[in-house]
């Protein structure tokens, strides 16, 4: 028995404790590196009034877009949205509240949230609608705005490999927002393609240490591609 074993065996168990009106941080960029099965579990559970923090909101029938038809999301904090029709409809009708946040600021809000930093100054957004209502201050003659960090009741994360202790390795650009989300959830749930025994991952190659991870589940993934762009073979 090890108190460090984070593995759970069902999605129900993985998302237990999630209740209405909670805040969830989600990893992923577009449909790349999204915790697709954890999202499906939230859909199945029917949890409502959620605040989602994620770079994007999926497409109509995949990713976080799945939570739209049953009006499960009350508010989304994202940098780029609107790849789906239902999202646009709910946003225009005011059913869904959208807080557009610059991508780098969003990443830093999660990073800072997980690192115990309540706010930070950034030049991003100065003089734009993003700066409205925020403190402004000069450092070395340049203007900066104060951005508050973000934490969540849950973080849902997709990694490539993990050991049972929750040490994580991501694969290629499926890393994106996942490591920051992992640090900033009160309960961080990670789904992976492969779970190995502790000691089997090279400690030097671990991207996210297991201290941030509460629950770990192994699954299979559709990994849908949004923009399949290729060149002819033999070029």
């Amino acid at each position, binding site marked *: 028995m090890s108190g460090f074993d984070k593995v759970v065996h069902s999605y129900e168990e993985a998302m237990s404790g999630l209740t209405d009106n909670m805040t969830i941080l989600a990893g992923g960029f577009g449909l790349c590196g999204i915790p697709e099965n954890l999202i499906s579990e939230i859909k199945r559970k029917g949890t409502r009034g959620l605040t989602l923090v994620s770079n994007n909101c999926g497409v109509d029938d995949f990713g976080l877009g799945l939570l739209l038809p049953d009006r499960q999301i009350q508010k989304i904090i994202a940098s780029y949205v609107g790849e789906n029709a239902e999202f646009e409809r709910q946003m225009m009708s005011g059913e869904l509240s959208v807080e557009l946040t610059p991508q*780098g600021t969003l990443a830093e809000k999660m990073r800072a949230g997980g690192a115990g930093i309540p706010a930070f100054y950034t030049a*991003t*957004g100065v003089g*734009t609608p993003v700066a409205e209502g925020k403190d402004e201050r000069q450092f070395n003659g340049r203007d900066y705005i104060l951005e508050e960090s973000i934490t969540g009741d849950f973080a849902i994360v997709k990694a490539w490999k993990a050991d049972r202790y929750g040490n994580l390795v*991501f694969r290629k650009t499926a890393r994106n927002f996942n490591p920051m989300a992992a640090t900033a959830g009160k309960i961080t749930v990670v789904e992976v393609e492969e779970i190995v025994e502790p000691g089997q991952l090279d400690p030097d190659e671990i991207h996210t240490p297991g201290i941030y991870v509460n629950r770990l589940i192994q699954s299979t993934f559709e990994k849908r591609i949004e923009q399949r762009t290729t060149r002819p073979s033999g070029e």
Partner: protein
Amino acid sequence: MALSRDQIAQRVAQELQDGYYVNLGIGIPTLVANFVPKGIDVMLQSENGLLGMGAFPTEEMVDADLINAGKQTVTMATGASIFDSAESFAMIRGGHVDLTVLGAFEVDVNGNIASYMIPGKLIKGMGGAMDLVAGADNIIVTMTHASKHGESKLLSNCTLPLTGRGCIKKVLTDLAFIEIKAGKFHLLERAPGVSVEDIIKLTEGELVVEGDIPEMELG
């Protein structure tokens, strides 16, 4: 003749230098990668977490875990590195990227840029554009000089919500290469066959024209 999209990209590519780390936005800026001058090495940064973006993959090489900021499948160049989004924007905000090329709806004489939102119409979000314009010193904006209806996009004041304030110094349109200095546009080059008068007519903001304005040289 106004420049084609490829020709705009071709002219921008002349600004690349050996050893540059470059972030290319979606649209015309992406095409710049096709015109990197021979004998020069540049490394492309994709803000979703890739430095050293390669060509599009062949059908057999397609990997759902490897995309660019436009969500297109890509490959990695030799010497590429992968990192998370916070690290990616640390590079961008920290001023480590040598050149950023991005599109816009409007630019004005004070270097303001509007590129992400048309109120009541297009509300998709700024993505990484606000971070890119705030973090980079060397930015080239590519866009058409005027709308299809002949309305200038080079203004005394941007009318749309801003992406960044006072951060743009160079604009390459289908008609002209323009520098922004001390609250004015300065005409540096004109597209082949386009007259200075044509450019003046389609530039709403104050445009300084000094001496003979050379035609752009395209490969």
